[in-house]
């Protein structure tokens, strides 16, 4: 199954929030929708879920307009919240029934998920008696209990301890292997990197980068070198002053690593030879960006120009 958004436009008043957004996600794969706060992720998700219509554009399933009565969508919103004063089983079965399940069927499925999430003992308690992390696990059940084909998880890992995060990872993997479309939205790039096969980066209402994560990384312009030199770092900085990208690794593990920009990837060998010949070098390699690096590069205001001319084919 393929979920496809085609040329989606949305205005709120005079504000053009989404400007011709298109991407697709396939079943059995996880898709990461990335973007800074206010980039339009939630608006995209709401259009996808038919909370409000797009001004223009289409939401398609396998090429045909989506039929919400047939295609189930499960949603874990970023703003968590259920009914604090109601019992867990009552509200979970309410939400499952709103998605079209019969009550008995709903209860059966909820019991499975409560067991899977190790929450069975809380089944008949009021929600507000649970800790925040446990409330979040309950909320996760609302996204999964009705066995939807599309699962949308908005910041699913925030607020979970490492054990629960591991549990959630296992569940997400299971859902992916069951052939579901899992749509992630997160700022925690390490999770996206771990799960998602494909991503789209939203910036200013447009998709500035999209495609298979492996391809994106592979096609990332190999025009940067990482140089590690404990002895000659200052000398190198002087010599290559015009090539140095300042503050590149300030927050990283190796603070003193340097990053040099290449005019062209073909310069690589020449500069490497230069460096090793003239300085005491502990290591030099072509820069392999993490998703975090790619995200920062494409979703920052000041590098927006650079981003637009780097289309990656998937």
């Amino acid at each position, binding site marked *: 199954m393929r979920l496809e958004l085609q040329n989606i436009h949305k205005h709120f*008043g005079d504000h053009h929030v989404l400007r011709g957004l298109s991407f697709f996600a396939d079943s059995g794969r996880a898709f990461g929708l990335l973007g800074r706060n206010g980039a339009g992720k939630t608006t995209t998700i709401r259009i996808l*879920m038919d*909370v409000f219509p797009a001004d223009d554009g289409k939401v398609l399933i396998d090429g045909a307009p989506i039929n919400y009565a047939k295609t189930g969508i499960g*949603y874990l919103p970023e703003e968590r919240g*259920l009914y604090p004063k*109601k019992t867990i089983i009552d509200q979970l079965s309410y939400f499952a029934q*709103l998605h079209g399940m019969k009550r008995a069927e709903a209860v059966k499925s909820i019991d499975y998920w409560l067991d899977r999430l190790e929450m069975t003992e809380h089944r008949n308690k009021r929600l507000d008696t649970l800790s925040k992390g446990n409330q979040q696990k309950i909320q996760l059940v609302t996204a999964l209990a009705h066995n939807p084909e599309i699962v949308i998880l908005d910041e699913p890992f925030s607020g979970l301890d490492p054990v629960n995060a591991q549990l959630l990872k296992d569940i997400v993997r299971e859902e992916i292997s069951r052939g579901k479309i899992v749509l992630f939205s997160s700022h925690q790039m390490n999770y996206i990197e771990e799960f998602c096969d494909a991503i789209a980066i939203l910036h200013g209402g447009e998709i500035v980068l999209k495609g298979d994560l492996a391809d994106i990384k592979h096609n990332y312009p190999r025009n940067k070198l990482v140089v590690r030199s404990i002895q000659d770092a200052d000398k190198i900085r002087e010599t290559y002053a015009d090539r140095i990208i300042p503050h590149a690794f300030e927050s990283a593990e190796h603070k003193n690593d340097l990053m040099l920009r290449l005019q062209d990837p073909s310069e690589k060998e020449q500069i490497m030879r230069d460096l090793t010949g003239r300085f005491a070098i502990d290591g030099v390699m072509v820069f392999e960006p993490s998703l975090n690096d790619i995200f920062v590069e494409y979703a920052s205001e000041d590098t927006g120009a650079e981003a637009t001319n780097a289309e990656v084919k998937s």
Partner: protein
Amino acid sequence: MNQFSTILKFELKGFFKNKSYVITTVLFVVIIAGIMFFPRIRAAFGGGGSVEITYGEPVYEMVLDATPEMVGQMNEVMMLGAYDEESAYAAAQPFAELFPEYLVMMTLESEEYIRSLVEEGHVACGIFIDSQTSYKYYVQNMEMTDNNADDADLAMRKVAQLSVMEELGIAQKDAEAILGTEITHQEISLGKNQAVNFFYTYIMIFVLYMAILLYGQMVAMNVATEKSSRAMELLITSAKPVSMMFGKVIASCIAGLVQILLIFGGIFLFYNLNKPYWGGSAAGTIIGMFFNIPAGLLVYMLIFFLLGFLFFGMMFGAIGSTVSKVEDVSTAITPAMILYLPGFFISIFSMTGGGVDSSLVRVFSFLPFSSPFVMFTRIAMSTVPGLEIALSVVILAVSVVLVGLLAARIYRVGVLLYGKRPNIFTMIKSVIRA
């Protein structure tokens, strides 16, 4: 439809499991039971034992139905005095006959003495006859329904007439016969009897008013609470706003009806259990009247109650969706309240003023925001052509659907807006755009 019934069930369950709803209902029924059993309880514990009457020196007592025990219990004594002894004796009999509900006590003391008895609360009221054709009526607080003076006029007239006849040489027996000519009459109202219908119309208008006030506010609160707890984020993606709106409002309408039925059922049941003890008292008569509502009128009452409730409930629900904090609900619903006050007041004023068929009232009986009150009042108190009733119901029903759809739209836009409450114009703009 499926979603709607799921929402309806969930919301209803919420009401019936809600402690304050259950407690208020039970409390109401218990209070009603207490009131209805009160005369029986009083009868069981009261009575017996003689009571000393300490005031003054009653020279003449007209004891017809009353006993001294009753005097002590009820303090319903009418003190009668006059400018001379002869007039006092002459007046005692006619006054006692005309005021069977009082123990009429005659005294030969001064006017000042009668006045002080009334002032200090020893007796219910006092009459002092100044001359053959004038008297003073003393009472501590003049009640709205007090028509003792009218009866006293009759008594005075009778005394005066008797004395005139006596002077003319007509024997006392003949004179009494002349004065005692009995006239009977029947009042036949070809339309409605406004006096009889007044009470239950008044009560129903008031119940509708209270129900909209309480439950409308509850609907608004309910929506605002869902929004502030962010359960809305999930709800809005799980259910259609129209199902949401109608489900919630109809659920609160049913909850309200159940509460009202329990309360009135309680009154009916406990009243009938204690009917003999209420006897002919004024309160008993009113309650009895209330349960004599014609069936047809009950049906209209239900129609207008339901439609009126839905009309305003939708409005309150939509308003609830525009606030971010539960505390803001009460200020936000003020405009909607102002909209429904005219209907209520026009009903009340037209009922008390008697002008239920004036053109103003007629106009308001068709406007959807006032017709639940005003048209019902007209039906109850006057004779309204069937066509007008049908037109009013149709206008109201169509308005309910329109307001419901509009409310669902406002709801969809409103629930996603957090922070500052949008003013009415931005709201209208975004609703049109959505």
